[in-house]
């Protein structure tokens, strides 16, 4: 049985950050799953990486950039084709309270 690497409050906090509504059952399962995974991941601490650079990028591409040109044509119908709710070409969402 792996020691608890993540407690229930932390699971709830992460679920809030990730906007995932979890049932109590799910919370408990996730706590167990994540704990065992995090325990496994702990093996990385066996490695001394103080002198190692993090991998910035895998690839040989330099800095690709595009010219400042308008290449898109207006097509609100196509862009909103999959919208769950729309009105007058705007996406409808519940009232946002600032």
């Amino acid at each position, binding site marked *: 049985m792996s020691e608890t690497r*993540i407690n229930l409050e*932390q*699971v709830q*906090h*992460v*679920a809030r*950050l*990730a*906007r*995932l*509504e*979890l049932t109590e059952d*799910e919370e408990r399962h*996730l706590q167990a*799953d*994540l704990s*065992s*995974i*995090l325990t*496994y*991941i*702990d*093996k*990385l*601490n*066996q*490695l001394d*990486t103080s002198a*190692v*650079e*993090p*991998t910035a*990028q*895998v*690839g*040989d*591409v330099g800095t*690709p950039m*595009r010219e400042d040109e308008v290449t898109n044509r207006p097509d609100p119908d*196509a*862009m*909103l*084709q*999959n*919208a*769950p*709710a729309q009105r007058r070409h705007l*996406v409808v*969402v*519940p*009232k*946002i*309270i600032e």
Partner: protein
Amino acid sequence: MSDLFRLTIAEARDQLARREISAVELTRSCLDRIADLERRLNAFITVCPREAMEQAEAADARLAKGAAPALCGIPLAIKDIYLTRGLRTTCASKILGNFVAPYDGTVIAKLRAAGAVFVGKANMDEFAMGSSSENSAFGPTRNPYDLRRVAGGSSGGSAAAVAADECIASLGTDTGGSIREPASFCGVVGIKPTYSRVSRFGVIAFASSLDQVGPFTKTVRDAAILLRDLAGKDTHDSTCSARPVPNYEAALTGDIKGLRIGVPREYFVSGMDREVEDAVRAALTHMKGLGAKLVEISLPHSEYAIATYYILATAEASANLARYDGIRYGLRVEADNNIDLYNRTRARGFGAEVKRRIMLGTFALSSGYYDAYYLKAQKVRTLIRQDFEKAFTQCDIIATPVAPTTAFNLGEKINDPLQMYLSDIFTISVNMAGLPGMSVPCGYDSKGMPIGLQIIGAPFSEETMLRAGDAYEGSGAIKRQRPPL
């Protein structure tokens, strides 16, 4: 029923060019095969016979004029992770269950331009997260060699479809082994090219620094043909290499004399299936017989690869999947405020494995944990890359098993996520180092289940990797056994 579906790309290309067969006939043959097998196999989420026949007819018109591209008229299955304009694209998730792609991804556009035919969107693990295709919202794909077993994942549908001849070739994606492992489990060829070799634009992102597009084919030659049309610079993908694309088919000389094959001692570990190990070692011996040299090498940080992967991939994924929020497209669970809308939409729309990985990734990036997890993992990734850099000074390719076992039973590993993750052990480092890797069939176990040999190359050395695989395959080392379907 005609069995044109058994053809390879190379064979079909010839017969189509000589007008011995038509694209329509070939496509019809595959569609009939799909209709025959799909209830048992479940390799497809969406089959599109109407669109496929339209594409086939257009291909025939082009073939009639002569000098058509290699893929013209070739029926392909496309993993449902690629945006195909006008077609439902679900990523095997409820959250995109009704999503119709408004644009074509770059490789899809390339394939269309080449006249290829899309017979359907292939099943997969939801958001490419899994090693068995059991995490699909549309049911698992079964292994054509034994319907009680998994086809592998996450590109299980693409692999099974080729193995069962439901199509001539297919597209998958590979983030931690998702092409190579199902290829191994289903006895077909699967390639993950060098990271940045193929454009990712229009491929639903799982882990941006690891994802790569690749083909499933029946032969190595076919993979070389297909890869050539997929690879190349794309102005829509800032991470895509501008390096010229060689003629991969021309590299298939059949000659591997003097080729130095690195054999990493860390990859032949206890816990591996005995028959898998035997088959792989036999393949190595065989290649030695063809003139290659075996060199023992060490990749000392191999044991840390899975831990590293499950931090980096899930961290990137947690951000990549934030856009699935019920606002602009996909599933929406209505609520009277936005927070509940997000919470409930994502709760209902994502499966358990996806939620698990989002949670892990969010945690790894969260305040107070970033250094210990994300940053640490990026550093270990550097060590893993350096292992391979050193190794490639001593060898030209590296050969290993693809998976520790053959295809496992449906339901066997699904309840133990960590166990499932550990089956990626041989493939995952290749993604971390951005290297090209392929799976080539190298035998069958005593139950008739396929075993794959993994060949890994140095960056952008697909020619060497393909040459080695083709030489091995062409030497008659193993005789292909068709699945009993």
